[in-house]
């Protein structure tokens, strides 16, 4: 009987121990693809993100590494052509520069635009329109607890009439002005780029990057 009781804890302890391990999943060599992301927003200048994808396990996910710099990016509106130039902005939360091609001509309502990108021997084109019929909003209300696939959160509920025969998409923009009900976080957000840091933080030493 004594032997049984020696085996018992040994068997049980090893049963569910070390159940996880990091592995390398064999994958064929990855060929980067082109990624084009853009938004034509009326009353703003066009912004196009033209990057190459990287292997899933790659560490290089900064757009500074991914941007395809030598492309010719144009937004064409009839006889008018806006040649976009490479620009960047600093994301002050994660301290990363984001690269994009930026135009100079403001996007107009009720206009059809053609995108043309020439990169090496490849040409990529797309067409879109800002001539989207407005929909009538029936009502708008606020809820503090709204459940959807993104979990439970507060939200604004908008009721409007969709046109059933059309395949269309809607984009909402919600502006929240600062007023007396707005609550601010008690402690300042600390990132090296925002210029706030704790005196003991190592990040003080690398704050305020000086150049792009």
């Amino acid at each position, binding site marked *: 009987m004594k032997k*049984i009781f020696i*085996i*018992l*804890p*040994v*068997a*049980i*302890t*090893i*049963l*569910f*121990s*070390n*159940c*996880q*391990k*990091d*592995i*390398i*999943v*064999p*994958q064929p060599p*990855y060929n*980067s*693809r082109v*990624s084009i*992301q853009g*938004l034509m927003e009326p009353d703003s200048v066009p912004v196009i*993100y033209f*990057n*190459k*994808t*990287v*292997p*899933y*396990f*790659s*560490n290089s*996910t900064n*757009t500074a590494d*991914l941007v395809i710099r030598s492309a010719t990016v144009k937004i064409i509106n009839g006889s008018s052509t806006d040649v976009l130039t490479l620009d960047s902005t600093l994301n002050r939360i994660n301290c990363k520069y*984001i690269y*994009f091609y930026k135009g100079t001509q403001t996007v107009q309502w009720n206009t059809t635009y053609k995108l043309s990108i020439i990169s090496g021997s490849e040409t990529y084109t797309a067409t879109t329109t800002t001539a989207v019929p407005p929909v009538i909003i029936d009502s708008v209300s606020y809820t503090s*607890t709204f*459940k*959807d*696939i*993104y*979990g*439970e*959160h507060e939200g604004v509920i908008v009721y409007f009439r969709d046109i059933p025969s059309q395949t269309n998409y809607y984009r909402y923009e919600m502006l929240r002005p600062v007023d007396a009900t707005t609550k601010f976080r008690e402690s300042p957000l600390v990132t090296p780029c925002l210029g706030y840091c704790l005196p003991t933080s190592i990040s003080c030493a690398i704050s305020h990057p000086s150049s792009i």
Partner: protein
Amino acid sequence: MQLIKGGFPAKYGGRLSSILDITMKDGNKEKYQVEGGIGLLSSNLTIQGPIIKNKASFIISARRSYIDLLLKPFLPKDNKGTTYWFYDLNAKVNIELGKNDKLILSAFNGKDNAAYTGANSLNYGINLGNSTATLRWNHLFGNKMFANTSLIFNEYHLGLSTTQGNYYSLLYTGVKDVNGKTDFTYIPNTKHMIKFGATYFYHTLYPASFSAKIPKMGSKVSINKDSIPHKYSNEMAFYANHEWNITEKLGLNYGVRLPYYFTSNKAYLLFEPRVTAKISLNKTTSIKASYTVMNQFLHLVPNSTASLPTDIWIPSSALVKPQNSQQYTLGLFKNFKDNSVETSVEVYYKSMKNQVLFKEGTQLTLVSNIEDALTFGNGTSYGVELFIKKNIGKLTGWVSYTLSKTDQTFAELNFGKAFPFTYDRRHNLSIAATYDLTARWTLSADFVFHTGNAFTMPTGLIPVTAGGSLYDGYYYDYSSRNNARLGAYHRLDLSASYKKTRKFFKWKYESELAFGLYNVYSRKNPYFVYLTVDPVTGQRKAVQVSLLPIIPSISYNFKF
């Protein structure tokens, strides 16, 4: 227990794949018997005997694992959510009502429950169970014909919950079947055996699936199985089958099955011819060829392309057509050494229509209409099976190897190109051996190896530059569907048993002391793989979860 892999007789239907026909053991009509086993990880007990001597008998057996109870004190503190247990109960009563009539009542209930809590906020829980009850009446019409008429109730459910990182998913799939059937067997002489009958199923299915981001506040959604909408359907079938020994060297088994499936707004009447021919080349060699058509009205749909087992059952409907297969097999069978060694080689080809999968990007909620998210395609499966079995001698056992390929093609998936089926297994090897060392000592070894399941994982990515918070900041490039494989599964089990007849007061009983080693070299076989980001380094990585490393066991079995 009988496994039918091809050349299915017309008696069987409703599935495209192989058939495992299980018959429960009858109770002893003459004397009471108690047998059981007390083990380190589980125990079992079986009691059987006559209710009325030589007229009615019963058998009851029960088994329960208690690793969950023993586990608690020894688990690391951060691993309290990990557990595993199962139990099953069997009962059967046989009553001879007269010279020509027999009544059989049987029931089974079994449940499995496993939970796993790992690092990286991974939680995984699975709960599945099956209950069945059968009332069967066996009637002899003279000495050439008999019939079995059964009323069967069957219930199955699978509940699954997964939490990983910022996301969680829930799944529940339940099936309830009420089935009535009658099977006639007519044997006019030794050359002919004719089987015919009818069956009727009333299916009730209740699948639900949900996946979402974990809410920043408030509670997570849970699935209440009682509130899942039920889907009802009816399945009938009529069949006739003739087994005909035309000559000593030529045998034919042919038949037809007519399934009729209907719901409130759709009906399918189908035709399933079946034929198997056997040619004996000599006393030890034969060739067998078969052609069968099968239909399946209940569909098992993988709920995700991840490596987790997340399949749900849905019924056929006006939109979801029955799955259909045509299977061809050809086999060569050869026995050696006075039939003590059996060998065979078989090839098969199966084409499948109306396969069902979810569309790309499907994210179900509890109010989703599951059918709206489905897409349909075809599949093929082919392979070769080799089998060697040694029946006689101190060393007995068998070796089985299958080389196969199964893929699917869907117009709306993988750019219309063929991709591997989730359970496609290129290699499948099983070896089982038993060696009688002495009259009392027996040694056994089992080895299994098979290719890992296919699953889909991203091969590339790009940061989302606008509205990225909805996608956790990245768009993923998947290149192709089921583009990755779990590692191969292989395991060696060893056991040794010592049998002896012993005395307990005035009773003699047979005892067996069994020692076992499960997963001898503690292979970390993949259960599933998930992708995560190292919280410290920010490096993306794949993590494999394995269950059941080496497990020593000891049990004491007895039979009065």
